[in-house]
């Protein structure tokens, strides 16, 4: 199993120096990818912009959205953004485009996009990214690895129909395992060969646990009671990180992305020490 690290693009207050240095250290470290989150109505850096910055200061590491809320963008704009990052990264093979519908109606409202049609809109985007309309699709998109997230039956079907793999939304290994079964079942149902790529994610800080928890409570405040659950699951010790890695590896995860909850560069180094 490969391990990636999140870029703190949705932690309020991050600046140019921190994001660039974070990406440089990730590229120099034992990580296979740097990944970004997507949140419109929040003090956050837009994911493709953040990946562009990371692309400019890195050579090796894979760049990933984990996930980007596809329907907030038109299919052509999304394809253009992905193609642009791929170009800046030196090739589509360095980009993993994880897409989902997100969970936040206020993002849709702000983007002026109808929330109720989000699933259908994501399917249209995926078909477009695959070149389904035979219209102009950006050639640089063609080698981009596509992941789809979500926990509903239609999400799994959409993943198996259009994507290369599945982006899980986080939780204990047991939850990942249950989702992996559904992803593989969908893959088989749609007649795809082999198995879907399986990406997992989890939050961590190996520094200030209280700050990490406070960030998660704030970021997920829109979920009501669930913010506490997400904050409670934050990995705050080396032991917890290692246990989770072992659990995900055992369930067949291909790439686990550890997302920061504190924008502290020392956390990149601490995590690097834990995973080597």
């Amino acid at each position, binding site marked *: 199993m490969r391990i990636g690290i999140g870029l703190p693009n949705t932690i309020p207050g991050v600046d140019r120096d921190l994001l660039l240095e974070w990406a440089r250290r990730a590229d120099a470290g034992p990580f296979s990818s740097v990944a970004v989150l997507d949140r419109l109505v929040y003090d956050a850096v837009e994911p493709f912009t953040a990946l562009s910055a990371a692309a400019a200061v890195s050579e090796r590491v894979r760049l990933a959205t984990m996930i980007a809320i596809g329907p907030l963008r038109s299919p052509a704009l999304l394809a253009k953004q992905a193609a642009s990052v791929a170009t800046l990264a030196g090739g589509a093979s360095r980009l993993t485009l994880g897409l989902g519908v997100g969970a936040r109606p206020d993002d849709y409202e702000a983007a002026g996009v109808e929330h109720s049609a989000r699933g259908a809109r994501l399917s249209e985007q995926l078909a477009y990214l695959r070149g*389904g309309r035979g219209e102009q699709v950006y050639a640089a998109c063609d080698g981009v690895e596509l992941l789809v997230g979500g926990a509903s039956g239609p999400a799994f079907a959409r993943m198996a*129909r259009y994507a290369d793999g599945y982006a899980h939304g986080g939780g204990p290994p047991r939850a990942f395992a249950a989702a992996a*079964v*559904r992803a593989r079942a*969908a893959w088989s149902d749609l007649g*795809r060969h082999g198995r879907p790529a399986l990406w997992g994610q989890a939050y961590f800080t190996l520094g200030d646990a209280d700050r990490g928890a406070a960030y998660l409570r704030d970021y997920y405040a829109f979920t009501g*009671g669930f913010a506490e659950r997400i904050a*409670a699951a934050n990995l705050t010790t080396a032991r917890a990180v290692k246990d989770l890695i072992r659990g995900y590896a055992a369930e067949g995860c291909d790439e686990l992305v550890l997302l920061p909850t504190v924008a502290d560069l020392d956390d990149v180094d601490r995590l690097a020490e834990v995973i080597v």
Partner: protein
Amino acid sequence: MKVSIVGAGPAGLYLGILLKKADPAHEIEIVERNAPDATFGWGVVFSGETLGALRDADPPTYVEITDTFARWDTVDVRYRGRLLRSRGHTFSGIARRRLLAILQRRCQELGVKLEFGVEIDAPESISGDLIVAADGVNSLFRRHYADKFGSTVEPQGCKYVWFGTDLVLDAFRFIFTDTEHGLFQVHSYPFDESTSTFIVECAEPVWRRAGLDRMSEQESLEFCQRLFADDLGDHRLMSNKSIWLDFQRVSNRTWHHGNVVLLGDAAHTAHFSIGSGTKLAMEDAIALAAACIRHTDVRTALVDYELERQPGVERVQRAADESAAFFSRVVHSTHMAPRQFAANLLTRSGRISHAGLAVRDPEFVRALEAWFARSSGGSGDARFAPPPLFAPLEIGGTTVRNRVVLESRRTAMADAALAGAGLVTTGLVAVVLDGRISPHDPVLDDAQVAEWRSAVDGAHEAGALAMVRLGHAGRRGATEPRDRGVDVPLRAGGWPLIAASALPYGPSARTPTSMDADDMERVRAAFAGAATRAAAAGFDALELDAAHGYLLAGFLSPLANRREDDYGGSEESRLRFPLEVLAAVRDAWPAERLLAVRLSITDWARGGVAADEGIELARAVAAAGAQLIHVEAGQTIAGGVPEYRRGYLTTLSDRVRNEARVPTLVGGYLTTLDEVNTAVVTGRADLCLLDLSAIGPVEEVDQ
């Protein structure tokens, strides 16, 4: 900490005990609307693992509880005059009244304040650092904060009534009795030295036909007493406010709101047919008490409790859903031989498989396997037999050597046979070039017969039979190869698409033309021609693909078929063209070879074919000559709502096989031989499509 617990059932009392034990400084008050000795229902059941948790949590009550236990390890199934027994299922039962008395005493001993006969009208009247709503299935707190908890409460399963009896059983006993009104079933189990619980259940229409909807409590008791006279003998049924009920299935998105937390039935219920309600409630109490010990902050503790409990409870609820559904449709399984019926019953919730049954009761499984081998044409004197998947299947004039089907490309058919499959099936083989899904898909025209012949010969040499799946992609045609997605239209080239109606399949798909009479004639002829060539190529079985939204499936579903002629509208009209094709194939295909139809039994989409209608379709297709139904679901439209999990089609296959009474082949992400054994021996399917990705070469097992 001041803790107010509403409801003095097992969950509330046990939580009081555990919290007080953890810190005697806690001020704990339990209020209950009823009197201390008032209780509904009779005995409750615990499994072995629950007992371990009770022992660790509070040894004194554990000793008292287990001292009064009725224990048994047998499940009896009384059915068609036979009594089948399966051992190795460890259960214990206790009178609910006794359990409550033990817990109440322990509360008093520890200094937990108990107040009975207190009616709570408004949640606001209760205060405390922690407020525990252990007030049962009709929880006032849950109803008050229903939107905060995200509550769902809906009736589930059959009508039921909960009696006691002085008949002391030595097992958990299921009784199935046919009447002129319909099927009745009993769930009964002992709970002390003189009494058993006796739950009577039947479908709602049966209940009405029997007049039970109009009977008094006493009349319905007498009705049941007469109905089960053979089992009860001289013993009598006893009522304790025993009236007919609908089981209420309760679930909540979250179990806490502020400092209010739901416990036991207030938070979740699991259908009584798996006997887990009290077990779950007491496990809740243990988890909540442990969380309160780990965290000083109440809200953190409640989050921890919920994280700890929800996944396990949801698993039990899913098993209970399967069990409730089993009893709702069990009337369709009463044609089964008693031993198979019992096996189907014991594996109903998905928690016990064939292998699990063999661990519990090797003798039961030995008899089951021997019976299955015998019913599959084996010797009547056999005392033991190979696992069920190795029983040959005689079907459509041919014999398949075992129950495993593997799907294979043409070039790998011999390999699939060597891997062990009884039947090797192709993927979709198009009956005409324009019926392909993608440009590289196989077809079966005159030029390919020889190549197919040699592939089929390869499978035969390795001992397997070969099946061809003939189809026409319809509106799902002319797409890019599947390695980078499905239903992605060809970027360049392609061919005109035809379908029942001029509706595109999914986003960015091309719009097909609606088929006219000439198209229909061409398609019928193409299927018949391909069937003739498939026979020439040596295939032993032919599967007509009428599933997954391809051309024939498109006629069957109102979501894809908007025709206003004789081929659209009613179920009969939607069936017309697929049945015409089936008839054309039937004529062209040798009568002594197996003819199967692959069918989406449900569209998994609003406004589409649902399972009840899908079973009707299966019945019609079988009546028209299909000897095997390959059970599929969904993909009728791109936007359906599939329900993926392990074995997600097995229950549908069970329904088709036992309601339409036609042999079935089922896949649905089956990855283990145990799943195959379980499905075939319990009569849920006749053949299983094993997922090839899950059974790699044995050399790779250690890697």
